[in-house]
């Protein structure tokens, strides 16, 4: 690439933030190159489906290739083993329990599709509740970008269901008109309706009246953007067989149609900085042909402007791996915060049996949630949480149907009794998965490992991770809420007691033992804010240290609320790119 054309923008990463940024820049007439470590987007998803169908464990990563030259963490490797068996070098005290994908299109291949906005108070938890870190701007400033994000990727929801906790909706295309989502809401499942009836209209927890709310989803309820409507494959994670669920290959294709170039199998490992100007002078990469083989090429590419979009583990890894004598803390890191403040939404899982049939394992994996406890005065005391209602019975909770079938068979059950007993069990299963707001800690961080490297010789991520007391208190409150709801619904709580011994994801709070699950959300590691001493990026997501470097993705979040991050990723990316087009690359 040396000596070839100088692009306006080089983007590292072809996930949702990189692909959408590329598309918007190309729409504005800019020349764009995306570099991605994954292979070219396949012409159809048949190979991924085959791998999925034949996988013994239907994990989020199960459809996708295991490429030593473009490795990623696996759910099956979440532990503190030493030496580590998986991609992450987990130093603890708790393992970081979330993963991501590095195929082109990124983690949106296997996300749930949940597309919630952060709440107004999520932007100011420090000033309002005395905990966490405030965003550099408020909900109202980001709000028009949420609307644009919802239309950009295609969200199915109805505004009248979503106007809680102060959420407002304006029409970004015509502020004089009311706002509508691009598609009508996905119908709530029969299971949702049954739970809602059982909770009733006047059940109060922590001062909030509990309701079951339809979830805004990046899932077609009408044909949209040349994609089909959802057929309820109940497989959003790990893969939608029919692409009724949005994934970022949609925007890779749109970007390419506008002339964006994509270099696949191109793994970026560092950035170079011009010592005179302090500007980024190039992106350095290795390329491979056979994903099990050695690097076949290495090189660098330059541009007028650079956008890091490699998600919240790989982006800081690259920046820190760029350390030189002149920049001993790596690129873009005068704040010292690159790689720090790693946050997930720790998930508290509780599961139960209803006395009456719910018929799970049908429809999208989740169509509703309890949103009431995402905000409230209790946030002065403990973290907020969003209770996701699963439609998949005890699939996540208990690896069903596999575990219960094996258990019943081992007990000697067979024939009509086996079939009948399994039916009785399966049709009444449900679970809550509560996404708890995590606080930033500097000690929660990713650094490039000095001990372990991938097949291309690039450092693997070394992760230090723990849960602060405020988050643990929220986790405990989430379990209490689940138990209270089970009791109200006359459901039998079947949540397995958690053993501390021999369980790397177990942790304690006030004498009780809990089990950490990850939400698949990776956030905070190159956060934006108004103080260059404490934040990596300014509110325009521009590096304080290198004016030709921007970053997008959930790594920019200084605080995470309880909303699944993707919609906020898109909103902040659109806002950032709009500023780049209007004010930086004009």
């Amino acid at each position, binding site marked *: 690439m040396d000596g070839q054309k100088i692009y306006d923008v080089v983007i590292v990463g072809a996930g949702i933030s990189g692909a959408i940024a590329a598309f918007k820049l190309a729409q504005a007439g800019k020349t764009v190159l995306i570099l991605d470590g994954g292979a070219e987007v396949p012409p159809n998803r048949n190979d991924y*489906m085959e791998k999925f169908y034949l996988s013994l464990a239907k994990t989020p990563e199960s459809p996708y290739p295991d490429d030593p030259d473009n490795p990623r963490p696996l759910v099956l490797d979440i532990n503190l083993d030493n030496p580590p068996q998986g991609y992450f070098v987990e130093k603890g005290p708790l393992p970081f329990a979330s993963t991501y994908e590095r195929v082109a299109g990124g983690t949106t291949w296997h996300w749930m599709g949940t597309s919630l906005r952060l709440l107004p108070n999520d932007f100011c938890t420090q000033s309002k509740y005395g905990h966490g870190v405030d965003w550099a701007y408020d909900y109202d400033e980001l709000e028009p970008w949420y609307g644009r994000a919802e239309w950009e990727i295609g969200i199915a929801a109805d505004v009248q269901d979503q106007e809680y906790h102060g959420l407002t909706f304006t029409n970004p295309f015509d502020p004089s008109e009311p706002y509508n989502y691009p598609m009508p809401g996905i119908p709530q*499942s029969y299971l949702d309706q049954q739970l809602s009836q059982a909770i009733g209209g006047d059940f109060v927890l922590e001062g909030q009246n509990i309701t079951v709310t339809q979830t805004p989803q990046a899932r077609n309820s009408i044909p949209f953007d040349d994609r089909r409507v959802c057929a309820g494959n109940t497989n959003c994670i790990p893969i939608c067989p029919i692409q009724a669920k949005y994934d970022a290959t949609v925007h890779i294709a749109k970007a390419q149609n506008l002339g964006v170039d994509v270099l696949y199998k191109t793994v970026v490992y560092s950035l170079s900085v011009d010592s005179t100007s302090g500007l980024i002078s190039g992106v350095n990469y290795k390329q491979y042909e056979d994903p099990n083989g050695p690097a076949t090429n290495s090189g660098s590419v330059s541009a007028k402007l650079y956008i890091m979009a490699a998600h919240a583990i790989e982006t800081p890894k690259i920046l820190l791996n760029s350390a030189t004598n002149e920049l001993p803390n790596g690129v873009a890191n005068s704040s010292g915060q690159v790689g720090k403040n790693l946050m997930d939404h720790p998930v508290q899982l509780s599961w139960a049996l209803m006395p009456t049939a719910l018929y799970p394992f049908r429809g999208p994996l989740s169509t509703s949630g309890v949103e009431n406890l995402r905000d409230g005065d209790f946030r002065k005391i403990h973290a907020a949480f969003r209770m996701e209602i699963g439609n998949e019975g005890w699939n996540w909770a208990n690896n069903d149907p596999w575990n219960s079938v094996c258990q019943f068979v081992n007990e000697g059950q067979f024939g009509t009794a086996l079939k009948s007993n399994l039916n009785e069990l399966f049709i009444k299963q449900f679970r809550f998965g509560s996404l708890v707001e995590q606080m930033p800690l500097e000690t929660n961080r990713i650094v490039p490992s000095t001990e372990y490297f991938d097949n291309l010789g690039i450092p693997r991520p070394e992760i230090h991770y723990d849960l602060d007391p405020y988050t643990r208190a929220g986790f405990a409150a989430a379990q209490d809420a689940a138990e209270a709801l089970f009791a109200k619904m006359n459901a039998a709580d079947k949540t397995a007691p958690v053993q501390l011994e021999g369980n790397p994801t177990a942790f304690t709070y006030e004498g009780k033992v809990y089990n950490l699950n990850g939400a698949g959300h990776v956030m905070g590691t190159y956060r934006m804010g108004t103080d260059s001493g404490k934040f990596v990026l300014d509110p325009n997501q521009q590096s304080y240290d290198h004016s030709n470097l921007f970053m997008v993705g959930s790594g920019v979040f200084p605080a995470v609320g309880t909303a699944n991050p993707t919609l906020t990723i898109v909103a902040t990316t659109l806002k950032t790119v709009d500023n780049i087009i209007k004010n930086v690359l004009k």
Partner: protein
Amino acid sequence: MSNGNDPDLANFVALSAVLTGFSLTVDPIDPEPVGDEYLAVLKNPQNADQTVVSKMLAAFASINNQSPPLSPLQLENAVQQQILSDPEMLPIAQNVIRMWYLSIWYSLTQPQPITGFSGGFVVSMNAYTKGLSWEAAQAHPMGYSEMHFGYWADVPQPDDS
């Protein structure tokens, strides 16, 4: 198409019907019959001791070929008494049940008990789409739906697949 060449097929499927509690038949027009695949797995010496497999199939053949034929309940009792009570045949019979329900042949040589986390292999893509556990749940295999938008808002209908 069904492999009419294996004389054990009808007997195996009939045994599987009793073991699983489902009405299984050899469908002559099923383009991808899973019974054939499962029988081939069972008859692979790498997967199970063939002496015991033969003994099990023979035992069921004599149960199933009585005159007058046994009722479904009598068939279950006979299978319980003559196959499932035999310590050699029991593990294989139980694995046949798991295979029909979960589309997986779990390894019989690994530490017992077999759980949903045990080692094995998914028999085929076709087998995954025909797993009986999903039917037992009145649902469909996760990742394989022949249903239409919105079906999930209602209870399962009798003709849902």
